[in-house]
C-alpha cells in the first residue's frame, strides 16, 4: 500500500511524523532482518548520453551504516545522489530504474523530489552551513521552511539535534553566533545536526570527513556509529579504514569498460575487508590497484 509520503499533496499538509517507528523498535528485539530501508533496483544514471551507473541493484538495511567504496569516478557519489534525487539537479542528468525508500518508489511519476530530499538528508564533503545564519538558525532552517514557527518546539528540536550531533556542549553558549565562525569539524557536525533535525529516514554522507583533520574525523566517525541507532546511514568514502571502522556493510564499485559505475561486491564490512570474494575487490582494498 502506498502511503504517499513524497507526493506533492503532502507538502503543505500536516507535520509529517517519522514513520517506521514501530518497525524500527521491533528490530532491536527480533534477530530476523527487517524490510530494507532502501532498495535500489536496476538503477542506471546518465549525464547527458554518458552512462555513469550501470544497472546497480542493492538493498540497504535500516538503522545501519552502509559504506560505498571504490576508486575515483566509479559512480559512488552518483549512486547516493540518486537515492535522494539530487543527481537530476545536474544539467542533462537523468536516471532510470527504481529506488524504494521504505517501500515507496521515489522515482514514481507523482513523487516530488523536494519531499524526497526532506526525508533523505545529505551531508557533503565540504561543510556548508548557511553563512548568513546563526548556529541555531542553521539547525532549524529546514523546519522553518516546513512552516514550523513555534519557538519552543524549534528550540527543543535544535537542542536535541545538536546533542545528537555531539555539538551541543561546544556551541550551547554561542547559538547566536554565525555558523561559519565554527571550526571545520564543528561546521560539519552542524550540518549533520541540520540534517537530523528533519528526522530523515535516510542520511546520506558524501565524503563527510575528507576536508577535516584527523581529530575532527574521529569525532565524526564516533558520531556516525551513534547515529546508526536512530538513522539509516549511507556513507561514501575514499578512506577504506574509515569504511572499515564505521560501517556494518560495504559496497564496492568499479567502472566497467565503458566507464560506467558497477556494483562489484556487497557484503558485511567484516567479510569485505577480511575475505572479499571478488578479485577486483581484493585488488582494490589491498591497495594493489585503483
Amino acid at each position: 500500500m502506498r502511503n504517499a509520503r513524497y507526493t506533492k499533496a503532502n507538502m503543505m499538509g500536516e507535520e509529517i511524523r517519522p514513520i517506521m517507528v514501530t518497525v524500527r523498535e521491533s528490530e532491536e528485539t527480533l534477530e530476523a532482518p527487517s524490510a530494507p530501508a532502501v532498495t535500489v533496483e536496476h538503477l542506471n544514471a546518465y549525464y547527458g548520453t554518458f552512462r555513469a551507473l550501470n544497472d546497480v541493484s542493492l538493498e540497504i538495511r535500516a538503522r545501519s551504516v552502509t559504506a560505498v567504496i571504490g576508486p575515483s569516478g566509479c559512480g559512488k557519489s552518483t549512486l547516493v545522489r540518486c537515492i535522494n534525487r539530487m543527481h537530476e539537479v545536474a544539467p542533462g542528468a537523468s536516471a532510470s530504474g527504481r529506488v524504494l525508500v521504505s517501500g515507496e518508489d521515489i522515482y514514481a511519476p507523482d513523487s516530488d523530489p523536494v519531499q524526497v530530499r526532506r526525508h533523505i538528508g545529505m551531508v557533503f564533503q565540504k561543510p556548508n552551513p548557511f553563512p548568513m545564519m546563526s548556529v541555531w538558525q542553521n539547525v532549524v532552517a529546514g523546519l522553518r521552511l516546513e512552516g514550523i514557527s513555534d519557538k519552543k518546539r524549534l528550540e527543543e528540536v535544535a537542542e536535541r539535534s545538536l546533542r545528537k550531533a555531539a555539538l551541543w556542549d561546544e556551541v550551547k553558549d554561542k547559538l547566536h553566533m554565525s555558523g561559519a565562525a565554527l571550526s571545520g569539524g564543528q561546521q560539519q557536525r552542524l550540518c549533520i545536526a541540520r540534517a537530523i533535525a528533519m528526522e530523515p529516514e535516510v542520511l546520506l554522507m558524501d565524503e563527510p570527513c575528507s576536508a577535516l583533520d584527523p581529530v575532527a574525523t574521529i569525532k565524526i566517525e564516533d558520531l556516525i556509529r551513534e547515529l546508526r541507532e536512530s538513522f539509516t546511514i549511507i556513507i561514501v568514502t575514499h578512506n577504506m579504514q574509515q569504511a572499515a571502522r564505521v560501517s556494518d556493510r560495504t559496497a564496492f564499485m568499479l567502472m566497467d569498460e565503458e566507464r560506467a559505475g558497477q556494483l562489484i561486491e556487497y557484503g558485511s564490512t567484516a567479510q569485505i575487508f577480511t575475505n572479499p570474494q571478488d578479485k577486483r575487490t581484493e585488488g582494490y582494498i589491498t591497495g594493489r590497484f585503483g
Partner: protein
Amino acid sequence: MATVRTLFDEELRELQQQLLLMGTLVDSAIEKAVDCLKRLDETGAREVMANDVVINQKRLEIEDRVVQIMATQQPMASDLRLLIAVLRIVVDLERMGDHAEGIGKIVLLHGQQPLVKPLIDIPRMSIKAREMLHGALEAFSRRDVDASLRIAMDDDEVDALHDQIFHELLVYMLRDPSTIERASYLMWASHNLERIADRATNICEQTIYLVTGKMEEINISKY
C-alpha cells in the same frame, strides 16, 4: 591489474623468507635431537637445547616485524590473513623447537645407560613428522589447500607409530621393571614427536585460512 605497493610486497616476501628460515632452524633441531638420542650424544643434546634460544628469538623478531607491518601498512583481506597466519605459525614453530629441546633434555636424563632397545620407530616418526613440517611450509608458500589437507592426514601415521612405540615400551616395562625409567624417557621422546606432527597440522590449517578465509580444524588428533 598493476601492482602499486612494491615496498609492501617486498616486506611480505621478506617476512615469508624469515618464516621459512625459522622452519629450517626447527627442522634441524628436531633432526639433531633425535640423532643425539639415537647415539646418546650428550654434547650434541646440549647444543640442541642452547640453540632453542635462537628459535625463540626468531619468533619474536617475526612477530615484531608483523606488528610493524600492521601498524604502517594497514593490511586488508589476504594481506591481513597472511600476517595473521604468520603470527600463528611462528607460535607452532616455536613450540616444535621446544619439543626438540625436550628430546635434548631426555638425552641428558637418559645419560650413558644402554638404550632399552635400538631405536627404529622413533627415527621413523621423526622423519615422518619432519616431512609433514617441510610439506606444510611448502604448501603455505604455494598457497596449496589440497596439499595442506593431504599433509594433515599424515598425522594419523605419526599417531599410529606413537601407539606402537608406546605399547612396545609398555611390554618392556612389564617384563623387566629395571627398564621403566629408560623406557619412559623414550615414551616422552615419542610424545614430543607426536606433538611436533600435530603442530605441522596446525600450519596446514593456517594455509587453508590464508587461502579461503575460513578457520577450521582439519582433523582432531587422537592425542
